[in-house]
């Protein structure tokens, strides 16, 4: 029974329709993790508490990380240009190309998802940022819109005042919209919806680059440019101005992230949206908000509310810290100065939450490359490959999930401590009580969501 799914989806694009009972959209898969056993939670939370209090007394008394990356040349190099930008552009074309079959009236195989969901929700949204956290920013080069801007010779003159005026607020809003598409939109698994969204986003990026200049436009309006810069700053590897791969030293790149306007909001959005997705499948969340969960506007409200709650908590912490350290500090300034300390926690949340999605649903890529448009092709003979759910058992995944969350917490505490020493001097330890409390709360929440 092949239907004109494509046309239906096209109509659905952009419409916020209230469905009576909608599935939890995850963009891809329709599979959820089983809860982590409660013993893992108890051990993880205990370790977090002990480390946090020990950190207050044991950590160094002078700032160590604030002078930024060290730039010791690495022994290997990764070639620049050429193939990598082309790969990004091909990926974008494959996603936007999903609009062609319905436009040409071709019948698609409804049992095959096409390449768009796995490309967008696994490769682009997870593998590139997570990979960047290991090997340094890889998005800047693979970014298809930058390549497109180069090819089209867009944005020759940079208008830097656009960056100063707007910061990354436009990117923040687009990132929130992207997570809405992933977590709430009923069309998140539809290739045609993704194709249309990618087309709209591409037009938006072309306009941005033409308006503000290529680099300024992407820095302000491309949600994924600041997001990937934040996440990849954790990596000990980076690229020097001359293109050479260098060792930056652990955590040092994070301390020199430019304090764009809206920087804290991006970290909050990253933590809040993943929290929402994790919490939404827990029994207590469902029993509390079951009515709202049934509709798109209800889920949208819950998604935005979760982000706002995380944001409010961070704001309260900033106010408390600002009060403690003196008059020259405002809550807004504190919030900006400490935003980078939440990046490891945001990354840990995302890795723990999406680990199995990469391992399992990521395998769909193998089948999808053989039939990218779900037209019944079998280019490489792998179109029938199904997901192997037995490549790993549950226990190793639980260990990694809890371990990653605890590690993220430790890195966050270390970064916050170091920044407080640099900014507040003698008041540093006292000013960090509220921040430490927030981090313990976030980490406990992260573990709770995993085990609920």
């Amino acid at each position, binding site marked *: *029974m092949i*239907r004109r*799914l494509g046309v*239906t989806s096209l109509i659905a694009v952009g419409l916020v329709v209230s*469905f*009576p*009972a*909608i*599935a*939890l*959209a995850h963009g891809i*898969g*329709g*599979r*959820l*993790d*089983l809860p982590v056993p409660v013993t893992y939670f108890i051990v993880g939370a205990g370790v977090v508490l002990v480390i946090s209090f020990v950190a207050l007394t044991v950590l160094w008394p002078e700032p160590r990380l604030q002078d930024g990356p060290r730039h010791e040349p690495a022994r290997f190099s990764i070639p620049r240009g050429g193939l990598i930008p082309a790969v990004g552009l091909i990926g974008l074309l494959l996603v936007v190309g999903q609009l062609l079959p319905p436009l040409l009236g071709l019948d698609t195989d*409804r*049992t095959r998802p096409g390449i768009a969901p796995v490309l967008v929700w696994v490769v682009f949204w997870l593998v590139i940022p997570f990979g960047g956290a290991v090997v340094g920013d890889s998005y800047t080069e693979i970014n298809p819109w930058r390549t497109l801007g180069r090819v089209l010779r867009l944005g020759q003159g940079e208008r830097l005042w656009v960056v100063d005026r707007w910061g990354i607020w436009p990117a923040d809003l687009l990132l929130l919209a992207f997570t809405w598409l992933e977590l709430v939109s*009923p069309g998140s*698994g539809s290739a045609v919806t993704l194709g249309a969204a990618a087309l709209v986003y591409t037009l938006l990026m072309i306009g941005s680059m033409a308006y503000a200049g290529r680099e300024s436009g992407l820095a302000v309006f491309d949600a994924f440019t600041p997001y990937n810069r934040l996440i990849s700053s954790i990596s000990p590897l980076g690229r020097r101005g001359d293109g050479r791969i260098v060792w930056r030293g652990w955590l040092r790149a994070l301390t020199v992230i430019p304090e764009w306007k809206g920087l804290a909001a991006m970290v909050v959005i990253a933590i809040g949206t993943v929290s929402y997705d994790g919490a939404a*499948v827990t029994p207590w969340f*469902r029993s509390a908000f079951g009515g709202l969960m049934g509709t798109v506007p209800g889920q949208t409200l819950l998604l935005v509310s979760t982000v706002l709650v995380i944001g409010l908590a961070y704001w309260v912490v900033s106010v408390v810290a600002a009060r403690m350290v003196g008059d020259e500090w405002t809550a807004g300034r504190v919030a900006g100065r400490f935003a980078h300390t939440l990046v490891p926690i945001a990354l840990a949340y995302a890795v723990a939450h999406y680990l199995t999605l990469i391992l399992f649903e990521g395998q769909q890529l193998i089948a999808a490359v053989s039939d990218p448009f779900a037209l019944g092709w079998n280019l490489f003979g792998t179109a029938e490959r*199904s*997901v192997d*759910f*037995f490549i790993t058992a*549950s226990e190793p995944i639980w260990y990694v999930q809890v371990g990653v969350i605890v590690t993220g917490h430790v890195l966050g505490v270390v970064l916050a401590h170091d920044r407080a020493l640099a900014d507040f001097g003698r008041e540093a330890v006292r000013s960090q009580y509220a921040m430490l409390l927030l981090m313990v709360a976030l980490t406990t929440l992260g573990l709770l969501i995993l085990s609920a």
Partner: protein
Amino acid sequence: MFWGGEIYGSTVRHRTWLLWAVLLVASGCSGEGGGVATSAAVTSIGPPTTTNTMPTTTTGALPTTTSSAPTTTAQRIDVYFEGGQVVGQDQFSYALGEQVSVWVLSDDDDEVHVHGYDLFFTVTAGVPLEISVTAEIPGIFEVELESTHTLLFELVVAP
């Protein structure tokens, strides 16, 4: 139950439902695990005249993907999809290796997609469909009506 009136309306399409309900009452069988079916019978004893319209059973039209439905005892229905609403348990839990058996009844032709296992069952309006799977992949899997991505229930397979 709030949905009793809607399901047992006067349209011809719903007579099959009535049949099941009547059979259920007659046999006194409550249907194991099918809480919905039990309460359906209680709330649906309609005017006696409607029993005369009892049509021939639709079990012969069962799609090949289901196991044969019992014809003499009442049909258990676990999840109803009717008028855009899903009624039934949210989750059905099984241990690894067990045989999943969830009966679904829809008022629209569609496909039921068991995610993860990636199985597609064709469901015909008014014809009970058994979602029959061996629970061999641990996890929580969404079972959806494919055309509208409507969540019918979640299949929970514990390791």
